[in-house]
C-alpha cells in the first residue's frame, strides 16, 4: 500500500500540538510552580462552588414531589442549551484560526496530506480549543447530578456517551459555517464579521436572559395553576436541539427509566454530520483557503476626525499626542478590540436594569437600608469597572509586544508609554464610572451625602483599577498573543482581578464605618464623628493612591528591564 506510506497519519498531523503542550507543561520557568498552584487552588474552589450550589439545589428539587426531577431536568436543559450556544460560537471563531489562519497550514497544505485526515486533524484541534472550558465547567455539574440522583458508576459512561457527540456536533456545524463564510468573504474580513456577530449574539443573549427575569420561574405562585406549571416544565424547550437529547437521555438514566433513543439520536446525528462536514470540506476547502490568503483590507484614511483629534491633543506635546493618536487608531481599527464595546454596553444596560428593579423603595424599607444599598452598590460598580479594565487597559503593554523594538530603540521614555496608556484607558473609564454611579444613584434616590461619597469613591477606585491593570498587564505580558480578547484570560489577568477585588473590598471596608455612622445619625439621631470620617475617607483615598502609583512604578521598572 504505497499510498498509505506517503500520507502522514491523522495522529502524526496532531503530534506537534500535543508535543507543544507537553513542552509548555514541562518547561520550568521562574514562578511557574507558584502560578500552577494558585490556578489549581482557584480551579478547585470554583469547582467546589459550582458543585456545592448545584448539590444543594438538586437536593431541594429532589425533595419536591412530582415536579422535582422535572425541575432538575429543566435546569440541566437550560445549562446544556447555553453550553451548546457557547460551543457553537467558539467553534465558529476557532475554526477560522485552525482551518484558515494557523501558521502551520502552509506546511500542511503544501505537504502530501490526505484531505480527510487534514479535516479530522483540524476538526479535533477546533474541538479541543473551543470545548475545554465547557468540559471543565460540566464536570462538577454532572458529578452533582450523578450523586444527588444516584446515577451509580455507570453514569460516567452514560455521560461520556451523551457528551462526546454533543461536543462533536457544534464543532462540525461551526466549522462548516466558517467554511461557507470564508468562501463568501475574505478571511480577515470574516474574522471581523465573526467577532462582531459573536459578541452581538453573546450580548443579546445576556440581555434577553436578564429581560426574561428568570428569577420569576422560581416562584410558581406566578402561574395560574400547578397543572399549568407542570405542563410548562414537561414541554421540551427545543426538541430538535442536541442539548435536549442529552438532557432527556441523562435524566432518563437518573430517574431509573433508561431511554436509549436520545443516545441513538446523538451518535447517529453526529456521525452523519461528520460525513456531511467532510463532503463540504472536500468541495470548498481549497477554494476557501486560497481566498483566505488574499484577503487584504484596503483602507482609506478618514482625515477629518483624525485631524480634529490631533488638534484637541496638541497641548500634550508631540510624543504624547502621537502615542495617544496611535492608541485610538489601533483600537478602533481592530475589530477584536472595539467590538468588545458591544459586550460592555450590554453589561452596563443589564447593570442599570438590575438596579432599577431592586426593591429598595416602598413599604417596609427604611431610610437606612435604602441608602446603605447604594453605598454597597459601589462594590458592584467596582467589579464592573475592573472587568472593563481587564478587557481594555490590561492588554495595553502586551499588544505592543512585536513592535516593542521600535519603542525601545527610540528616545521614548518608558514612563511616557505607561502614562499614555494609563490616561487613554482611565479617562473613558472614569466618564463611564461617573455616569454609572450618578445614574444608578439617581434611580435609587440617594441622599446628597451618599452621592458625594459615591462620586469620590468611584473616581479614586477608577484610578486605582487602571493603575493595577497597567501594573499587572506589564508584569505579566502576553506578547505572543495576536487576539487582544485572549489576554485578560491569562494568569496575570486573574491576578489583576484578584488584586482589584481586594482593593475594592479594602476601600469599602475603610469607608463603611463613617458611612454607617452618618446614616445611623440621620436615621436614629446618633452622633456622627467628623474625625472618623476624615480617617475613613483619608485612608481609603490613600489606599487608592497607593494602588494607582505602586503598580505603575513596579511596571516601569519591569518595562525598563524588559528584553525583547
Amino acid at each position, binding site marked *: 500500500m504505497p499510498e498509505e506510506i506517503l500520507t502522514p497519519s491523522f495522529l502524526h498531523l496532531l503530534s506537534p500540538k500535543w508535543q507543544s503542550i507537553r513542552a509548555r507543561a514541562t518547561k520550568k520557568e521562574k514562578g511557574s510552580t507558584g502560578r500552577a498552584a494558585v490556578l489549581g487552588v482557584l480551579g478547585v474552589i470554583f469547582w467546589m462552588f459550582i458543585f456545592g450550589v448545584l448539590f444543594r439545589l438538586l437536593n431541594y428539587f429532589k425533595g419536591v414531589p412530582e415536579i422535582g426531577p422535572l425541575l432538575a431536568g429543566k435546569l440541566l436543559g437550560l445549562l446544556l442549551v447555553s453550553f451548546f450556544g457557547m460551543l457553537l460560537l467558539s467553534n465558529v471563531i476557532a475554526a477560522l484560526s485552525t482551518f484558515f489562519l494557523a501558521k502551520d497550514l502552509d506546511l500542511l497544505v503544501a505537504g502530501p496530506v490526505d484531505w480527510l485526515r487534514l479535516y479530522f486533524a483540524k476538526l479535533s484541534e477546533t474541538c479541543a480549543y473551543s470545548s475545554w472550558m465547557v468540559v471543565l465547567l460540566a464536570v462538577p455539574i454532572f458529578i452533582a447530578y450523578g450523586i444527588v440522583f444516584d446515577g451509580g458508576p455507570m453514569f460516567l459512561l452514560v455521560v461520556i456517551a451523551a457528551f462526546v457527540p454533543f461536543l462533536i456536533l457544534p464543532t462540525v456545524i461551526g466549522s462548516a459555517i466558517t467554511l461557507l463564510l470564508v468562501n463568501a468573504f475574505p478571511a480577515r474580513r470574516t474574522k471581523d464579521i465573526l467577532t462582531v456577530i459573536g459578541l452581538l449574539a453573546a450580548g443579546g443573549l445576556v440581555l434577553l436572559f436578564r429581560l426574561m427575569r428568570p428569577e420569576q420561574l422560581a416562584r410558581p405562585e406566578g402561574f395560574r395553576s400547578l397543572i399549568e406549571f407542570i405542563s410548562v416544565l414537561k414541554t421540551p424547550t427545543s426538541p430538535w436541539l442536541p442539548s435536549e437529547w442529552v438532557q432527556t437521555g441523562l435524566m432518563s438514566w437518573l430517574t431509573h427509566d433508561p431511554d436509549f433513543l436520545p443516545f441513538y439520536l446523538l451518535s447517529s446525528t453526529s456521525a452523519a454530520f461528520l460525513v456531511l462536514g467532510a463532503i463540504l470540506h472536500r468541495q470548498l476547502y481549497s477554494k476557501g483557503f486560497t481566498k483566505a490568503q488574499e484577503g487584504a483590507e484596503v483602507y482609506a484614511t478618514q482625515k477629518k476626525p483624525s485631524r480634529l483629534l490631533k488638534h484637541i491633543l496638541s497641548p500634550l506635546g*508631540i510624543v504624547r499626542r*502621537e502615542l495617544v493618536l*496611535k492608541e485610538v487608531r*489601533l483600537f478602533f481599527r481592530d475589530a477584536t478590540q472595539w467590538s468588545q464595546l458591544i459586550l460592555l454596553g450590554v453589561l452596563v444596560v443589564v447593570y442599570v436594569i438590575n438596579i432599577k428593579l431592586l426593591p429598595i423603595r416602598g413599604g417596609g424599607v427604611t431610610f437606612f437600608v435604602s441608602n446603605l444599598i447604594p453605598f454597597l452598590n459601589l462594590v458592584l460598580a467596582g467589579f464592573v469597572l475592573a472587568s472593563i479594565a481587564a478587557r481594555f487597559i490590561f492588554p495595553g503593554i502586551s499588544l505592543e509586544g512585536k513592535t516593542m523594538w521600535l519603542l*525601545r530603540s527610540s528616545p521614548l521614555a518608558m514612563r511616557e508609554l505607561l502614562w499614555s496608556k494609563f490616561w487613554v484607558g482611565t479617562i473613558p473609564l472614569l466618564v463611564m464610572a461617573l455616569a454609572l454611579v450618578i445614574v444608578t444613584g439617581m434611580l435609587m434616590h440617594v441622599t446628597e451625602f451618599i452621592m458625594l461619597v459615591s462620586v469620590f469613591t468611584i473616581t479614586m477606585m477608577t484610578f486605582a483599577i487602571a493603575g493595577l491593570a497597567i501594573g499587572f498587564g506589564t508584569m505579566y505580558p502576553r506578547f505572543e498573543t495576536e487576539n487582544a480578547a485572549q489576554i485578560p484570560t491569562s494568569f496575570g489577568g486573574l491576578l489583576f482581578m484578584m488584586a482589584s477585588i481586594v482593593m475594592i473590598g479594602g476601600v469599602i471596608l475603610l469607608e463603611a464605618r463613617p458611612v454607617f455612622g452618618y446614616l445611623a445619625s440621620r436615621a436614629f439621631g446618633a452622633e456622627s464623628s467628623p474625625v472618623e470620617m476624615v480617617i475613613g475617607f483619608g485612608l481609603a483615598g490613600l489606599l487608592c493612591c497607593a494602588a494607582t502609583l505602586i503598580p505603575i512604578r513596579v511596571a516601569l521598572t519591569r518595562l525598563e528591564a524588559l528584553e525583547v
Partner: protein
Amino acid sequence: MIELTALTKRYGSFTAVDAIDLRVPKGELFGFLGPNGAGKTTTLRMIAGILRPTGGNVRIGGVDIAADPIAAKRILGFIPDRPFIYEKLTGIEFLRFVGGLYSQNGKDIEHRSRELLALFDLEQWRDELVESYSHGMRQKLIISSALVHKPDVIVVDEPMVGLDPKAARILKDLFREYVKRGHTIMMSTHTLEVAETMCDRIGIIQSGKIRALGTMADLRAESAHGDSGLEDIFLRLTGENAAREFVDVLDA
C-alpha cells in the same frame, strides 16, 4: 560614533556576545558578518538599547546608552531583521508616529515621509493599512522609518532580506550617500557580495567573539590568501569550509 567596550551578553551559562571591543567612527559604513547564531543580532540589539548588556558598555556619539538612553537613542535609527509593525496603521501614519517618537512633526516630517515613500515605490500604498503590505513592503517602510528623523547613526540588521532588486540597489546607493555625508552605519548581513562592495570595514564575529576586523585588504592579509573574495575569507576564518562531503550527505 559607535563604541563598544568589553560588551558582553550572557543567557544563563551561554555567552552570546563575549567582551567585544569595537569602534565605528563617523562617516563609516561598517559590515558585521558571522555565521548564524554568532551574536550579530544580539550585538546590534544591545547597541539599539533593546537588550541590556550583561557587561561592558555601548556609547553612541559619545553618550553611554545605559547612563543616558534618551540622548543616545535620539541620534540613532534602528532597522530590525523582522519587520513587525503596527498592522492597523497606514504607511504614512506609521512614519508620522515614528517622527513623533523623536519629537519631530509638521511639514518637515510630512515632506520627508512622502519623499521616502516615493523613493521606495510605496507612495500609492501610503494610505493603506500595513496589514495589507507584503514582507518586502514592510521592510521598505521600516527602512523609511529609520531614516525619517535624520539619525546620525543607523544600526541595521539584515537590510536586504525581502527587498526586490530595485529597492536593494536604492538602499545600497542611499547608504553610501548617507555615510558620505558624515553619518555612520553599522550593518549586519549574510550577503557577502553586499558587504564586500559597500562596507568600508568589516568585522567577522563567531561564537560571540570578533575573529577578524579591518578593510577587505586587511582581511585578505589576515587570512593569508591575497586574492581571495570575501566568501573564501569568511569560510576560512569561521571554519565553515570544513563541511562534509556533499556526496556523503546526499547519499545518507
